[in-house]
């Protein structure tokens, strides 16, 4: 392990209010299932030094439907999602995504708030949230506010979340239409996505992609093209103008550009 933990400071929050007070007092990074942070810890690339452990806050757990909105607590794990009849009924594409995130060990610890807050453009749950018009609930000692996931990220691993805010829940309104999810990686389990996509085929189609730009992309122009009856081949060309894939260790810009178009065609044919 390359990070000296002696220089790290961890405080454990016993309640949401307790955590919010700590975040208001000084800059601290919330830590939950640690499935991203401890990778950085091992690599010696962990930037923050002060943390607040929120894993023990049971008020941040639980999946519920309130006023026809699916409300998932920040600490909802992928295992919780896979086992949830409410998610199966309302957001089955999130279950498809959860099953392909890591393996059972990661699914038991990784949380939806962690996936959102970590801000990776390859986050597998985030395209699902984007295609489902999910809302991130942020709370600070001063206020609570709701930010649509499509307006949450401002740049690579950068978001509108303020230093004193904590993600307390993710809310998903009723999804109108057939849901679709596809992850493309080197193998089914334990792989980081080369490209990942989620779509909803309803009266107004929705399509979101990960690993094709600095942030997860909601392909609005492509959606408008599909909604207006534009042939799929032409819509796929529109999609290439909405993404900005790069070459990296997992794939190439060229591959990602081609596969993004194929994923759109698959989405369209498989939800017909």
């Amino acid at each position, binding site marked *: 392990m390359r990070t000296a933990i002696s220089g790290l400071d*961890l405080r*454990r929050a016993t309640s949401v209010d307790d955590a919010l007070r700590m975040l208001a007092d000084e800059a601290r990074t919330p*830590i939950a299932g640690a499935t991203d942070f*401890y*990778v950085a*810890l091992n690599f010696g690339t962990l930037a923050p030094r002060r943390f607040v452990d929120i894993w023990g806050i049971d008020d941040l757990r639980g999946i519920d439907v309130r006023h026809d909105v699916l409300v998932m607590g920040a600490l909802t794990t992928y*295992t919780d999602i896979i086992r949830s009849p409410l998610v199966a009924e309302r957001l089955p594409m999130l279950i498809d995504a959860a099953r392909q995130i890591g393996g059972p060990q*990661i699914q038991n610890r990784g949380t939806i708030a962690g996936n959102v807050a970590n801000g990776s453009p390859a986050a597998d749950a985030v395209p699902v949230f984007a295609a489902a018009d999910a809302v991130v609930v942020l709370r600070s000692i001063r206020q609570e506010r709701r930010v649509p996931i499509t307006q949450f990220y401002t740049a690579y691993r950068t978001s509108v979340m303020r230093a004193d805010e904590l993600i307390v829940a993710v809310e998903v309104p009723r999804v109108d239409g057939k849901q679709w999810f596809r992850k493309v990686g080197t193998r089914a389990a334990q792989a980081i996505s080369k490209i990942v996509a989620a779509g909803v085929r309803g009266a107004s189609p929705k399509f979101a992609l990960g690993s094709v730009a600095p942030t997860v992309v909601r392909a609005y122009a492509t959606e408008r093209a599909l909604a207006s009856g534009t042939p799929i081949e032409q819509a796929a060309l529109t999609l290439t103008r909405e993404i900005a894939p790069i070459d990296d260790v997992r794939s190439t810009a060229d591959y990602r550009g081609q596969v993004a178009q194929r994923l759109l065609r698959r989405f369209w044919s498989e939800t017909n």
Partner: protein
Amino acid sequence: MRFTLNGVATNVDAHPMSRLLDVVREECQLTGTKEGCGEGECGACTVLVDGDPVCSCLVPLAQVEGAEVVTIEGLGDDHPLQHAFMNEVGAQCGICTPGMIMAALSLEPDASIDDIKVALSGNLCRCTGYSAIYRAIMKARQP
């Protein structure tokens, strides 16, 4: 930090952000749990925390306070899975074996071969090609 390790009340004086893996191996001297990748990809360090398999390389010590932790040593040396892994040659170099067995413990009695593959999807083996491992787990489940 107090927790239960293999059924025994344990109190460890270590940094709260210590990896559970290091605490188990170094403070508690239980070296059956292996470090493979150190990034949650290989499953070699799998232990059970309150019954759930987790990668102990990604768990801060602070988060197991009051929890029940079970490592491969907690199975003793006469567990059906251990015998089946030996009899079916489900272990070659052996580094992945403790993690494989800990992951397999979570399977229901009526698990199918597909269930076994899913349960073990977080565990990598570079020797066996997995067939002998799946066979061992199937055999261990037969009365």
